C-alpha cells in the first residue's frame, strides 16, 4: 500500500480555502515541503501565517463547512490523502499512520473520560488491540514511553488529576500509541512553562530516536526551532517564504522576513539595548497585494517587489528563498 522509498510526508502545492460570507480566503496558499523518516521539520511564522491551518489541512480536519482543500496533494508513504474518503482517512490514517498533538494540553483531553480510555482509543479504533486487557497494557506502555511514572496506576485517573506537563505527555501518548510514521506537533509547548518545554522537546527527540517518526513541529519560537529541527520552513501570509536546513537558515537567513524574526530573539550578552520589533501587520488575506506579500513591511523593498510575487530561488548552501534579493545569488530558479 505504501511506497518504501517515498518520504514519510510530502506536501505539494497545497491550497486550503475558507469560503466565508465575506469572501474566499486562502490561509494555506501553495505550500510544499517534505519530511523524511526520523527527520524534524519546523514550520515557523507569526500567528495567522497559516501554520496551524497547514497542519489541519494535512489531516483534513478543516473547519466545517467553510474549509476545503482546493488544490495540491498530501502524500504519506506515497499515498495521496486528498484522494481518500473521510471514512478511509479516519479508519486507516488519522492516529494510525499520522497523528497530531494540539496546542493546548489543558483542553485537549476529554474531562469526563479516564486517561486510559483516551490513550487506548486509537488502539481500539484501529484494531491494534482486541481485548480490554491488551488495550490497557498498550496504553500503559504508551504512557511509559512519554515518561509518565507508574503508568498502570494512572490509567484510571482523569485529566484534572494531571498537571499541565503531564497532560501534554498524555496527549502525546495518545498521538504515538499506534506508532505513526508522521507526527504533527502544533505548538506543543507554548502553553507550558519554560523548564517543562525543554523536557518536552527532549522527549520528542527521544521518541523520534526510538521509533523513527517524522515530526512536523509548528512553532513561533525560533529558539525551539533551532534546537530541535533538522530543517526549517518560514511561513508568511499562507506561503513558505524560506526553507532549508536549519543550520543554513539560522546562519545566513536570505529572506528579509526571516532576518526580522531572528533579530527579534533576545540574546544574552548582546550589545544592542533595545530588542528589534518588526513594524506593521501581516496583509489581509481577502485583499492581498499582487507582488510580494511581505513588501509592505520589508526594510529592503524594491520597485519590482510590488509587481510580481518572487519565485523560489535556490541558494548555494542548499536552502530556498522566495525573495527577489536572492535572484543574483541563486544557483538556478527552483
Amino acid at each position: 500500500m505504501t511506497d518504501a522509498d517515498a518520504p514519510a510526508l510530502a506536501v505539494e502545492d497545497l491550497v486550503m480555502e475558507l469560503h466565508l460570507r465575506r469572501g474566499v480566503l486562502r490561509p494555506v496558499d501553495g505550500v510544499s515541503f517534505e519530511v523524511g523518516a526520523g527527520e524534524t521539520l519546523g514550520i515557523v511564522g507569526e500567528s495567522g501565517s497559516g501554520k496551524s491551518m497547514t497542519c489541519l489541512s494535512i489531516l483534513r480536519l478543516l473547519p466545517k463547512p467553510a474549509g476545503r482543500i482546493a488544490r495540491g496533494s498530501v502524500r504519506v508513504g506515497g499515498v495521496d490523502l486528498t484522494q481518500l474518503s473521510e471514512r478511509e482517512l479516519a479508519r486507516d490514517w488519522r492516529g494510525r499512520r499520522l497523528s497530531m498533538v494540539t496546542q493546548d494540553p489543558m483542553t485537549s483531553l476529554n474531562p469526563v473520560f479516564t486517561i486510559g480510555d483516551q490513550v487506548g482509543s486509537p488502539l481500539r479504533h484501529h484494531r491494534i488491540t482486541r481485548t480490554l486487557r491488551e488495550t490497557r497494557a498498550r496504553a500503559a506502555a504508551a504512557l511509559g514511553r512519554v515518561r509518565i511514572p507508574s503508568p498502570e496506576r494512572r490509567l484510571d485517573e482523569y485529566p484534572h488529576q494531571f498537571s499541565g506537563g503531564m497532560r501534554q505527555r498524555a496527549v502525546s501518548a495518545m498521538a504515538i500509541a499506534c506508532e505513526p510514521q508522521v507526527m504533527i506537533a502544533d505548538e506543543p509547548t507554548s502553553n507550558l512553562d519554560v523548564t517543562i518545554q525543554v523536557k518536552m522537546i527532549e522527549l520528542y527527540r527521544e521518541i523520534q530516536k526510538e521509533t523513527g517518526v517524522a515530526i512536523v513541529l509548528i512553532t513561533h519560537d525560533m529558539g525551539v526551532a533551532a534546537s530541535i529541527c533538522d530543517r526549517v520552513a518560514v511561513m508568511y501570509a499562507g506561503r513558505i517564504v524560506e526553507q532549508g536546513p536549519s543550520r543554513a537558515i539560522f546562519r545566513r537567513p536570505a529572506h528579509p522576513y526571516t532576518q526580522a524574526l531572528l533579530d527579534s530573539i533576545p540574546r544574552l550578552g548582546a550589545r544592542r539595548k533595545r530588542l528589534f520589533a518588526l513594524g506593521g501587520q501581516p496583509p489581509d488575506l481577502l485583499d492581498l497585494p499582487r507582488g510580494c506579500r511581505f513588501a509592505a513591511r520589508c526594510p529592503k523593498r524594491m520597485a519590482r517587489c510590488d509587481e510580481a510575487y518572487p519565485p523560489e530561488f535556490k541558494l548555494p548552501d542548499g536552502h530556498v528563498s522566495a525573495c527577489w534579493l536572492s535572484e543574483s545569488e541563486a544557483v538556478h530558479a527552483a
Partner: protein
Amino acid sequence: MLGYFARRLLQGFMSIVGASIVIFTITRLTGDPVVLMLPPEAPPDVIDALRIKLGLDLPLWRQYLIFAGDALQGDFGRSYRWEMPALDLVLDRLPATILLSAVALAFSMAVAIPFGVLSAVNRGGWVDRFGKVFAMAGQAMPNFWVGLLLILIFAIHLDWLPAYGAGTPAHVVMPAIALGWYPVAAQTRIVRSAMLDVLDSDYIRMGRSVGTPEFSLVWKYALRNAAIPLITMLGVYFAAMLGGSFVVEVVFAWPGLGRTVVEALFARDFPVVQAGVLFAAAMFVVANLLVDLSYGIVDPRIRHGR
C-alpha cells in the same frame, strides 16, 4: 461533603416548612369545609359543634401550630371525606404518581436527547427544523388537551391503548406522553446547545485526529459532556412533572396523588390537601438532592471534590 449534605438537608426542610405555611393558608381561603360535610338543613349549633371538634374555630396561627406539631410526629389528621388518616391515603397514592412522573421524565429525555444531538450534528438540517416544530408544539399545547387528543386518537379511534385507569404497563403510556411532552422543547434546546459547544472543543478534535469514528465521538465522547447541563435541570423537570400530574391524573383517572389532592380540594378536605402537597414538596426536595449527588457519577471533577 458531609457538611454540604447536612446544609442541603436543612435547606430542604426549610422549603417544606415554607410550602406548608402557604398551603395551610390557601386551603383555608377556599371556604368552610363544615358546610359541605353536613346536610344543608343542619341546625347552627350542630355546625358550630363540628367546627369546634375539628379545631376550625381557633385562630389561624394556632391551627397551624397544632398542625405542624402533629405533622412532626407523623400525624397529618384524618380525612374529612374518606374517614381515614390523611397520611395513609397519601402514602397509598404516592407510588402511582412517582411512577407516572418517572416514566414521563424518561419519555421526555428519550425524545429530547436524540433530537438535541442530531440537531446539533446536522445544524440547520431537516432534523433540526422538524425537531424545533415538534418540540414547540409540545410546549404550546396544554397537557390536559394533549391528553384528550391522545385518548381520542389512540383509545377511541385506533383502540390501541386503554383510555383511563391503571394496572398494566399499557395504562401508563398515554398519561406519560401527555405529561412528558411539555419539557421536550426546553430539554432539546439544552442538549443541542451543549452539544454544539462540546463538538467544537479541542478534545473532540483531538479524538477525531486519532481516528475515532464520528459515531463514538458524538454519542460517547461528546454526549457525556453535553449531558451535564441536562442533569442539572432534571430536578426542575421532575417538579414540573409533579405539578403537571395534578391535571393529567384527572384526565386519565390515574389513581395517584394529584387526582386525590384535586378531589380533596373540591371537598375542602384540608388534612388530605396539606399532606398531599407536603409530600409533593418533599419529593421535589429529595429529587433535587439526588440530582446534586448524581453529578459526581457523570463528572469526575465533582467526584474528586474540585
